[in-house]
C-alpha cells in the first residue's frame, strides 16, 4: 500500500522529466549539429568559436549551467530589450540542459563525421552525385550510425541530469520525491529514493533497449 502510494506520487513527476528529456535532447542535437558544422569549417574564427564554447561547457557542472540559465538568460535578454523573466521555469530547464548537452553532442557528431571513410564520399561523386546528395545520402547516414553509441550514452546522461532541475524549482520526478520525503517528516525516506532510483533505471533500460533495436536494424551496416 505504502509502496503504491510512493510509486504513484513519483510517477506523477515522470511526464515533466520526460518533457525535459525530449525537448532538451532535440534542441541540444540541433545546436550540436550546428556546432559540429562550425568546428569543421576551415574558417579559424568559426572553429575557434566552436572550440571555445566546447571548452567552457566541458568544465561546467550541469547544475551550475541550469542556475546560470535561470539567473543569467533573463539578464542577457534584457540587454537587448527582451523580457523573458516570465518564461516558464521549464523553458529555463530545457535551455540549461540543451546548452550543456549540445557541446557533448557536437563532439560526438564531429568525431563521427571525421571517421567516415573518405572513399565513401569519393565513390558518391564518381557515380555522378553532386556534393549535397553525396552528403545527405552517404555521409550523413554513416555519420549518424558511427555516432550512435556516443549519442546513446549522452542521452542516458541527460536522463540523469534532468534530476538537477530541482535547483530552479521544477517539479520533475526527483523533486516530487524530495517533496514527498519532506512531507513524511523523515519516514520511508529510504524507500522513496530506492523506488525513485528504480524508475530512473527503468527509463534508462528502455532507452538502451531502443538503441539495441536500432543497432539490430543496421547490424550489417559496418561503418
Amino acid at each position: 500500500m505504502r509502496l503504491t502510494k510512493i510509486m504513484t506520487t513519483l510517477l506523477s513527476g515522470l511526464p515533466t522529466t520526460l518533457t525535459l528529456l525530449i525537448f532538451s535532447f532535440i534542441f541540444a542535437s540541433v545546436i550540436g549539429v550546428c556546432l559540429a558544422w562550425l568546428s569543421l569549417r576551415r574558417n579559424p574564427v568559426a572553429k575557434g568559436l566552436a572550440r571555445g564554447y566546447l571548452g567552457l561547457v566541458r568544465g561546467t557542472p550541469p547544475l551550475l549551467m541550469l542556475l546560470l540559465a535561470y539567473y543569467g538568460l533573463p539578464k542577457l535578454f534584457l540587454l537587448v530589450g527582451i523580457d523573458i523573466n516570465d518564461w516558464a521555469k521549464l523553458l529555463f530547464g530545457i535551455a540549461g540542459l540543451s546548452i550543456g548537452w549540445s557541446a557533448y553532442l557536437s563532439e560526438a557528431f564531429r568525431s563521427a563525421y571525421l571517421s567516415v571513410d573518405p572513399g565513401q564520399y569519393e565513390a558518391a561523386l564518381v557515380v555522378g552525385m553532386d556534393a549535397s546528395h553525396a552528403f545527405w545520402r552517404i555521409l550523413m547516414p554513416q555519420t549518424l550510425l558511427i555516432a550512435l553509441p556516443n549519442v546513446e550514452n549522452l542521452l542516458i546522461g541527460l536522463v540523469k541530469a534532468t534530476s538537477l532541475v530541482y535547483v530552479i524549482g521544477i517539479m520533475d520526478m526527483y523533486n516530487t520525491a524530495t517533496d514527498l520525503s519532506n512531507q513524511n517528516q523523515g519516514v520511508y525516506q529510504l524507500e522513496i529514493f530506492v523506488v525513485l532510483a528504480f524508475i530512473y533505471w527503468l527509463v534508462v533500460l528502455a532507452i538502451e533497449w531502443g538503441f539495441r533495436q536500432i543497432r539490430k536494424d543496421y547490424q550489417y551496416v559496418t561503418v
Partner: protein
Amino acid sequence: MLLELKNLKKTFKNNHVLKGIDLAVKEGEVIAIIGPSGSGKTTMLRNINFLETADAGTMTLRQKRIDMAAPTQEQVLWTRRHMAMVFQNYNLFKNKTALENISEGLIFGQNKSKEEAETLASRALDQVDLLDKKDFYPSQLSGGQQQRIGIARATVLNPDIVLFDEPTSALDPELVGTVLRDMKRLAERGQTMIVVTHQMAFARDVADRVIFFADGQIIEQGSADDVFDHPQHERTQRFLSAIAEDY
C-alpha cells in the same frame, strides 16, 4: 579520339607526381597501365575525374575541352557523368544494399526514376551473376563479390570510359579470377577502359595497348607483346624482370 589528355601535371608540395602526361584514348580501346608503386598511376586517374585538381593540363572528352587546372562545377559533374571508376578497395556504400549501390548513381546522378533505376540495377547485377545478393549489404559480401558490384555500379551508368585502379589487388588470389572475368566480358562488349593493374596476364589477354608508367611519365607504350616481350627502355626491362620474380 574519345579522350585526349595534354600536358597533365600535378605536384604535391615539392613532389612532382605527374610531369606532363599526354594520352589519347580511342572509342572501345582497352588500355592497361603498369608501373612501379608511387609512380603516379592512381593520381592520374583521380585527376581525370577531378577527385583531385591538376596543376596544369587540358582534357578533351567527346569534343569538349576542359582546362584541368580550373574546371567549372558543371564541367566536373559532366565529366563524372561520362566516366565511371572502380576503386582498389571497392568503396561500396556501406549503408546501402547491393542493389541500392548500383541504383544510387542512376537516381541521383542521372535523374532516372526509382523504378527505372532498379530495373537497370537488377540487370547489371545479373550480368555479374549476383542478382541473388541484391538485398545484401557490403559487409555480407566477399571482396570479390563487392568488387564485381563495384564494376556493375560503374557500368550501369553507361559511361564513355571506365577507370579501374588496381581492381584486384585487394583480393584474395582465388577471387581475382572472377573479377577479371567480368572485366573481360566488359571489354568484349566494346567498353572503353583504362585499367591500372599488376595482372600481366590480363593485360596481355585483354588490353589493346599497354602503357608503362614511371616517375610521373609515360616511359613506353605499345601492344602487350611489344612492351612485355621487347621492351625498348632499360627502366621497363628492370621493372618487368623485377615483377617476373614475383609471378
